[in-house]
């Protein structure tokens, strides 16, 4: 099993395109940091206009913690694509190259192969999120310094003391890993159906985009289905920056994401076990 996992990880990290994801994460992070360095005050003044009317807020508002939050908010929309680049390629890519049949000739069950592919995609996801955490948090703190963090919600202004922030980021990144693992499992399922990796990657992004729109539309028609969409729960990491932290709601979101992940993985194994491998 370990040997199989090693091989899968070797396949992932041998390919140059895997590192494109890390490059994209770094580039977007630096672009946001640069934008905030040059025009961050205007952005903050605009965002805080409702509060500034009534209160004078002094101090380093535009600090590393706030910048990391903004980066995380924008990157978690792009990261599903980067996860799909690897997970969507794991079965379909091999089918495309013709190595899948060769792999299945080995005395390993198909279920184990799927599980190892999922596990390797999960490890890649963890590394990607850790990289995001390092680049976003470390460089933002380096460039913008520390300070109390503000979180603007549609109906509330939340302030978190700087001594109370880091554990929230730890849990938020852990939750982001869970959310991206759901994407990886979905991408793996789509990958099982395809014979080239472009299809699963595009399909993953299509599903994420459509469901994200549905999750964010404030229309009664979608209110009923919203709680059942995994995209509604993917932003559960934001709950850690609320006060008090809505642990029950975050727990529910985590359960939904785990159920989706298990569901996608089970479906992948069931389908892949019966799949007629022609390439």
């Amino acid at each position, binding site marked *: 099993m370990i040997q199989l996992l090693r091989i899968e990880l070797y396949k992932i990290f041998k390919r140059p395109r895997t590192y494109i994801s890390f490059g994209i994460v770094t580039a977007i992070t630096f672009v946001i940091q640069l934008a905030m360095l040059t025009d961050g005050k205007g952005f903050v003044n605009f965002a805080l206009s409702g509060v500034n009317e009534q209160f004078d807020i002094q101090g380093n508002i535009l600090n590393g913690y706030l910048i990391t939050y903004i980066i995380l908010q924008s990157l978690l929309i792009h990261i599903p694509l980067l996860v799909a680049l690897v997970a969507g390629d794991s079965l379909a890519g091999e089918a495309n190259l013709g190595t899948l049949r060769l792999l299945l000739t080995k005395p390993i069950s198909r279920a184990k192969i799927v599980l190892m592919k999922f596990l390797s995609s999960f490890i890649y996801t963890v590394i990607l999120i850790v990289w995001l955490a390092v680049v976003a948090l470390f460089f933002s703190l380096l460039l913008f310094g520390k300070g109390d963090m503000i979180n603007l919600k549609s109906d509330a202004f939340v302030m978190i003391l700087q001594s109370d922030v880091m554990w929230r980021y730890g849990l938020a990144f852990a939750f982001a890993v869970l959310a991206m693992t759901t994407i990886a499992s979905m991408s793996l399922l789509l990958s099982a159906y395809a014979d080239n990796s472009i299809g699963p990657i595009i399909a993953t992004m299509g599903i994420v985009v459509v469901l994200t729109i549905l999750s964010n539309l404030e229309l009664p028609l979608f209110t009923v289905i919203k709680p059942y969409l995994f995209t509604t729960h993917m*932003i559960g990491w934001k709950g850690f920056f609320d006060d008090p932290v809505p642990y029950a709601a975050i727990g529910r979101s985590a359960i939904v994401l785990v159920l989706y992940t298990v569901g996608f993985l089970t479906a992948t194994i069931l389908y892949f076990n019966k799949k007629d491998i022609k390439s």
Partner: protein
Amino acid sequence: MRKYIGLLIVILTLNVSVSRADDATKLFYTLRSKILTVKDYTADVNMKIDVSFMRIPKLRGTLYFKSPNKMRLERHGGLSMLPKKNINLTISNLIPAGAVTVIDLGNVMVKGKKLRLVKVIPEDDNNNIVLTKVWIDEANLLAVRAETTTRNDGTVIMDLEFGNYITYALPDKVTIYMDVKDYKLPKGVTMDYNNETPTVAVKDKTAKAQKGTIEISYLKYAINTGLTDAAFN
């Protein structure tokens, strides 16, 4: 004879009310002079902001004040929040400056304590303060409560509790009740996590929702140390 007695009663009543009004005016001016003896102070404070749309932890910091209206909260690297300058957190800014008309509203009992209630109207029409009601502890010459109606910032009520710094009329604890406007950002911008639990703002959509409370506990004062304007930059 009955006519003369009636006239005497009227004269006496008028005399008493004029005398009380003079007395109240004198009391107010004496109180104001006492309050204004504090030119500046530095104080270690604990601040609690309770506004329906705000979730702010208890803030600890150093509050700098310089008469007449300079104020700054320093939080040693953290963010500081104060109401806009014209709603100052000090009593000297909630009672009108300059010439005023004082109306005596008599004695009232507040929390078992007899207080003198006076209404103060500034004579300057351009003053931001329209009217102030001050509850005065005559024995100690302290303003225990002030209710100030301003032109631009609604009504501000300040409750003061005194202890160690009674000689300077500086409180140990101040509670300010102020009007706050509603706060709203589009959900499309904030992309809220819908946690299905009502937020504080939603829970408080009652009559209290438009009122904010700021509670400041003064732990230690350094009074009239000659603070310069540089401390407020």
